[in-house]
Every structure is written in structure tokens, then in C-alpha cells.
């Protein structure tokens, strides 16, 4: 077992031309925690996620995963290391079935090459069997079994969000990054979601790092919270610390009517 935080960013900065989207962000996420990154729109939260998952390479600063420098790796390499993510504006494989969506996420652990796969060698058949079982299990777990053969885009919105999480889990991550998992959900669904996040965290032995706008969800499930505003980290700590921080109230909670 590695010591120290599972994810650590050391003063990462992202500049787009003259705009500084994220400035000097230093975050630590410890194994088994649920950590939230909050902040008003345009604060740079998704940019931070995109740097961690390799979509952008930070202009400066370093990112460590399990003590290993992962700065500048490609997204697929980072996923392979054990960081999976969802997207703010759901990016499912829209025209493929629910089952295929999850199966595809198993592909990265496949050992067979394309020839032995196409020629259905025994090793591949075994692996395919295993991937199917795993995917089916995930789909059941997420209550998507009856939609298994439906086209992903035909699912209701809430289930699409669920499917996206299921798909992320199929990559067998240790760290799960959720980008606004409760976006577009009503209070009841949000409540269910927070229970669900806890459940999968325990069951799959995950660490969760999430971006969220629903304050009740964040305050309820997060062990620790980082608050961003205009790319700067303005507060960090437990829900209580953050809620009472005057800068946070000014920049965010006060304006947002505690929505």
C-alpha cells in the first residue's frame, strides 16, 4: 500500500491564452475519502478535472497519483492507472446499447490482441466471458438491467447519469471523479444519489472526488471540500469550516441562495 494521498496536485495552473482558468491549485485526496470541489460557474472546476484526467496538460505544476507523477499523460493512460471520470454534459456512446457502453469500458483491461480476439482464441473467449459477467453485474447493481439492450440515448436523463457512473466503474478505478453527478436532478433523486455514491464507494473500495452545485449533497457526503473562485482556491476544510468561511459566503453561498 502506498503512503500519502491517492491524488495530489501541486500548484497546478492552466492558462488559455491570457486567461488563467485555474491558478496554483493544490489538492490532496486521501484514500477512501469523498472530497468535493465547489465554486461558482466558471470557477475552473471542470478545467481542474480535465487536467487531472489528462485532457489538458497543466501550464505549470505537477499531478501525482499514488505518489507517481502523472502530469502530461494521455487520458487513456490515466484511466488505465485507475482514475475514472464522468462528464458534466453526459458523454455516453449515444447510439450504442447500455450493455455495450459498459462493455467498452472493460476493453482497456483486455490482454488479447486483435488477431486472437477476432479469431476467438480460448484466452479471448475467457476474457470476453469475464467482461460480460462484470458488465452485467454492474448493470444489475445500477438497476439498469431491464434497459440492457436499449440504446443509451433513449434512457431517461437520470438513468443516463447512472449509466455513466456504471461505465466509469467498469474501468476498475480506485479513484472516481464525478463532474456534477446531480446536475438536472430533483431533490429526491439527489438524495438517492448521495446514498448511492456512498454505497458504491464502500462496495468498490473507491475514493471519490466530485464537482457539484447541489450544496445539500456536497455538505452531506463530503469529508472535505475545496472551494474555487476565479481559478483561485479560496477555502478548504470540512463542510462546517467551509460553510462558515466568510470568503466562501461572500463569493458563493451568499449569492447562490444556498441552492
Amino acid at each position, binding site marked *: 500500500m502506498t503512503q500519502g494521498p491517492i491524488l495530489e496536485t501541486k500548484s497546478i495552473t492552466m492558462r488559455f491564452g491570457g486567461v488563467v482558468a485555474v491558478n496554483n491549485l493544490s489538492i490532496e485526496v486521501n484514500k477512501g475519502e469523498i472530497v468535493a470541489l465547489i465554486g461558482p460557474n466558471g470557477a475552473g472546476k471542470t478545467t481542474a478535472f480535465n487536467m487531472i484526467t489528462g485532457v489538458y496538460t497543466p501550464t505549470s505544476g505537477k499531478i501525482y497519483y499514488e505518489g507517481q507523477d502523472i502530469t502530461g499523460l494521455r*487520458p487513456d493512460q490515466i484511466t488505465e492507472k485507475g482514475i475514472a*471520470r464522468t462528464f458534466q454534459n453526459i458523454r455516453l456512446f449515444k447510439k*450504442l446499447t447500455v450493455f455495450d457502453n459498459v462493455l*467498452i469500458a472493460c*476493453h482497456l483491461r483486455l490482454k488479447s490482441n486483435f488477431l486472437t480476439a*477476432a479469431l476467438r482464441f480460448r484466452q479471448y473467449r475467457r*476474457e470476453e466471458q469475464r*467482461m460480460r459477467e462484470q458488465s452485467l453485474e454492474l448493470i444489475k447493481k445500477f438497476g439498469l438491467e431491464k434497459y440492457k439492450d436499449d440504446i443509451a440515448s433513449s434512457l431517461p436523463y437520470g438513468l443516463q447519469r447512472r449509466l455513466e457512473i456504471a461505465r466509469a466503474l467498469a474501468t476498475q478505478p480506485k479513484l472516481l471523479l464525478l463532474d456534477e453527478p446531480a446536475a438536472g436532478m430533483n431533490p429526491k433523486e439527489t438524495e438517492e444519489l448521495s446514498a448511492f455514491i456512498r454505497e458504491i464507494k464502500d462496495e468498490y473500495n473507491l475514493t471519490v472526488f466530485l464537482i457539484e452545485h447541489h450544496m445539500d449533497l456536497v455538505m452531506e457526503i463530503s469529508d472535505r471540500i475545496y472551494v474555487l473562485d476565479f481559478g483561485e482556491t479560496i477555502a478548504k476544510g470540512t463542510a462546517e469550516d467551509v460553510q462558515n468561511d466568510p470568503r466562501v459566503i461572500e463569493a458563493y453561498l451568499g449569492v447562490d441562495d444556498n441552492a
Partner: protein
Amino acid sequence: MKKQDKILTVILLAALFIFLIIANLFLDAYIKRVLNLCAIYTILALSMNLINGFTGLFSLGHAGFMAIGAYCVGIFTLPISVRPANFYIEPMHPAIANVELPFFVALLLGGVLAAFFAFLIGAPVLRLRDDYLAIATLGFSEIIRIVLTNMQSITNGPLGIKNIPTTANMWWIYGVTLVTVIFLVLLISSSYGRAFKAIREDEIAAQAMGINLFRHKILSFMIGAFFAGIAGGLYASMLSTVDPKNFIFTLTYNFLLIIVLGGMGSVSGTIISAYIVTAGLEIMRFFDEPLSIFGVSIPLFRPGLRMVIFSICLMIIVLFFRNGLMGNKELNWDMLRGLFSKRSKRIKGGEAR
């Protein structure tokens, strides 16, 4: 696969086998040639659909890859004894002048070389800006033709190569086509095929799911090029000649029409469409002949009309029937059964009334 489906598949293959025996015995040479061409176009269109339809890339290099395979077979299966008669302007380069390969080996070599060239073009383009693939492959296709025209001592230049042994009879061509279809169907239904489709649907999501975009794109591109090379080899052996003019880049548009009509992302659609388009292009030849009805000559019918109609068809399909025949669905036994049972029900219903 269900047991009943397995039986049906075996029956289908047996039917194909019997058809080939009958075709070989009774059909005239022209019809046999069209049928062979249909099969070769099936390989070409299917391999292009792997790249364009299943992986979502846009390659227009198939005529070029095909040319590589065709010349490989042309050069290496040409009997050494007839080489001087072919290469009369400039003798064959000494390095290959005495190399003669069995047809099968030359065919494979052609495929491998085509895949190798696909790697050379694909590596820089697919790594960086794959929306330039169309232009890079189209350019490549033309360059291959230019190179073939200029390398007199290897390709015999603009004269082409004649008297290539016609090893590729109907059995060879249908055999290779069948193997290709089976291989590609298996590949597409494997985890790799799913990864290709994921890239087509959403690259960013696919990459976030751990799929190495470059490796999978180049894989699909190279496999597609490999089969285009194989098809080219069959083509050369079937025609017994190769000529750089056969492989002008607009040839690729034939395969493009096939996959657009059949459905980008449908194997069965592509196969059906390959037969429709290939046979259609043959039948449409009469458009290019002067036509007179009751002694009145119709001025519209003259050389070039066929291709005008061809390009209008392509436009109509892409503008109004974007999914083609099959979209990205596949024809399978269940679907056929559904079709027939619906029809029989309807007939029964009609009788009852």
C-alpha cells in the same frame, strides 16, 4: 447463436457453394466476371467501411491500397519467361527480375505492403489531426499512381503489366471474400470492434474509458488497407493485367457509394449494396452508348452520362437517405424471420377476411 440459426447459416453457405458450382459450369464469362467483381468490391467496401463506418475515420485511399496489392501480384506472379516481353522498354530491375512467388504469397505480401503504407500515412495524421486523413489519403492514392507510372523498371510504367496468370478464379475470389467477411464480422463483434465504435461515437469519452485512440485508429486503418491490398491482388489476377490508369482515385468513390448506400456501419448492408452498385454500374453502361428509339436518336445518351447518374445517386443518398439501406443495423436471421412471419400473418389475416 441459436441452433436454428446455425443450421440456417450452414444452409446458406451450402447454397453459396452449389451456386458457385453451377455458376462456374453454366454462366458465360462476362456474367462470371461481373459476379467476381461484385465479390472483390465486397472486400473493398467492407474494409473501407471498417475504417469509415465503424471507426468513424475518413479515408479515401482505397484505390491506392488496392493498387499496391494489384501490382504486388502482377509483378511477383508474372512468370519469369514472359517478363522480357512485358518489360521491353526497360528491363525489370535485377533485384526482382528473378523473383517469382506463388499467387497466395504474393497476395498476402500485397496486403501486408498496403498495411505498411497505411501506417506510414496514418501515423502522422491519425496522431494529430485525423480530419486531414481524407486529404492525405486522397493525395497518397494519387501519388501511388504517379509512382507506379514512373517506376518503369519495377512496374513497367504507363504500359502496365500484361499476361498475369489468372489464378484467381471464382473459387479463389469467393473463398477469399468469404474469409474476409467472416474475419471482419468477428473482429467487429469483438472487444476491438466495440472500441472502434466507441471512437466513432465519442472520441473524448472513448479515451476517458481507457481506449488508446491512436493505436485503435491505426489498427483499423491498417486492417482496412490490408484487405484493400488483398482485393487489389485478386483484381489483378482476375483481369490478368494491371495498369496505373485502373487505380485513379475516383475508383474509391465507387466503394464510398457502396458503403453509403448499404449503411455506414453495417456489414450486411455493405455486402448487399456491393452487389447492387457493382451490377448497377455494369447495367448502366448503356447510358454511355448512343441510343435511338424508333430511329430517333436520344441526344442525352453519350459517354459520361453513367457517371453523372452515379454521382447524382451518391448525392441523393447522402442528402435524403443518410442511413442507406441498413443504417448501422445488421441483417440477421431473427430479422428475416420477423419479416416473413409478419408477411405470412398479413396474408393469413387477408384470407380470414
